[in-house]
């Protein structure tokens, strides 16, 4: 049982109200008292959750580069942001879209040839198939880089979902109980979507990809109709 004095000390510690000496003493106590440590962790997680109540604001895209520069990281392709995906991914998507416009047999042989030439050695390409007649004319291609845990999705000839709904991309990872969300997909007026995505969790192996119709803003697990899928 954590008495009131310790409770107050834990709260003051979390909120930064303790003097440096008192904070050091409290940290020492944390190292020796498992119950106090668990209690303080629960308080910390609870207090930090208040951050989620604040309005979320996307920072300017260039801020990441500024931060990377400040801490001495280079802007090499290893450091990528959603706005600056490596050219190789984009190029592979273009190649994939081009070859998917050709017949399937030729597509497979061309991909095999590119793989042999190491051009696509680390990348996974999937053409998603329509799961209902409404999407029979839709072309959907995913290029996935498992090393960098990022990818590109291109949809064309797809209509916008009904009001109050969004398309959402999922990655099927056999190591996980549920598909991993790769984010909401916004379709432009021309019926085209080009989306750079990163999954919300680490994907150990992408066994397949799917697009579903979810409530606006997306879901944590797929609940709506799967309209496109492939591997």
């Amino acid at each position: 049982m954590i008495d009131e004095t310790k409770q107050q000390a834990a709260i003051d510690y979390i909120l930064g109200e303790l003097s440096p000496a008192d904070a050091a003493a409290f940290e020492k106590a944390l190292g020796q008292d498992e119950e106090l440590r668990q209690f303080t962790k629960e308080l910390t997680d609870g207090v930090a959750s208040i951050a989620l109540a604040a309005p979320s604001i996307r920072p300017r895209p260039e801020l990441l580069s500024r931060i990377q520069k400040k801490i001495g990281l280079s802007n090499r392709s290893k450091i990528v942001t959603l706005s600056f995906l490596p050219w190789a991914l984009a190029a592979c998507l273009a190649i994939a879209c081009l070859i998917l416009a050709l017949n399937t047999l030729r597509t497979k042989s061309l991909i095999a040839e590119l793989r042999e030439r190491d051009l696509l050695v680390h990348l996974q390409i999937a053409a998603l198939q329509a799961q209902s007649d409404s999407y029979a004319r839709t072309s959907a291609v995913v290029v996935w880089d498992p090393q960098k845990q990022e990818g590109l999705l291109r949809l064309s000839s797809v209509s916008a979902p009904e009001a109050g709904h969004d398309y959402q991309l999922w990655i099927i990872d056999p190591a996980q109980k549920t598909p991993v969300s790769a984010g909401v997909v916004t379709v432009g007026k021309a019926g085209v979507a080009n989306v750079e995505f990163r999954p919300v969790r680490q994907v150990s192996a992408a066994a397949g990809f799917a697009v579903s119709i979810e409530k606006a803003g997306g879901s944590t697990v797929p609940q709506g109709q799967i309209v496109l899928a492939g591997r």
Partner: protein
Amino acid sequence: MDEADQYNVDLVRRIAQGDQSAFALFYSRLSPILYGVAFRMMNDHGDAEDVLQEGMAYIWRKANSFDASRSSAFAWAAMIVRNKAIDKLRARRRGERLRERVKGSSDLSSDQDDTSALEPLFREQRNQVRSVLSQISPDQREALELSYFSGLTHEEIAAHLGAPLGTVKARIRRGVLQLRKLFQREV
């Protein structure tokens, strides 16, 4: 620990090993929330950018000090950014009127709220947190939010609210304990 935070923990561990991609991913996932907190506290985009920059630089340098037995990775990052904002607020406090600093501080709604910047899981958690906060009495919530976002010490909050220090501390304590209880139940 839920899957999303496990992923955050994995990213922090990779950052500790100098993995720059993990750093970019971590930033990509959390920056809308962390920047929202920084802006809520600083009320200025330039200062909020400075705070986020200092916070992320600290995360890069000190990722190896993260201890999952003491907090979630999200809480660790949020508290770092909050502490950076408090440092900055306290550094610029001279000459500034207290009343101006805490103006509107209990208002967590904003026309700048970019919900679409959040991943679905965070959106769900946000709804739960707001629900939890709505269950806390108004005076406790006000004291809690002032304590979290304003950068004021408890003594300053007491002065601002015109309440005895002991009363303010008790409100904050009860609010935090209730938040912990409700958070455990709902989140």
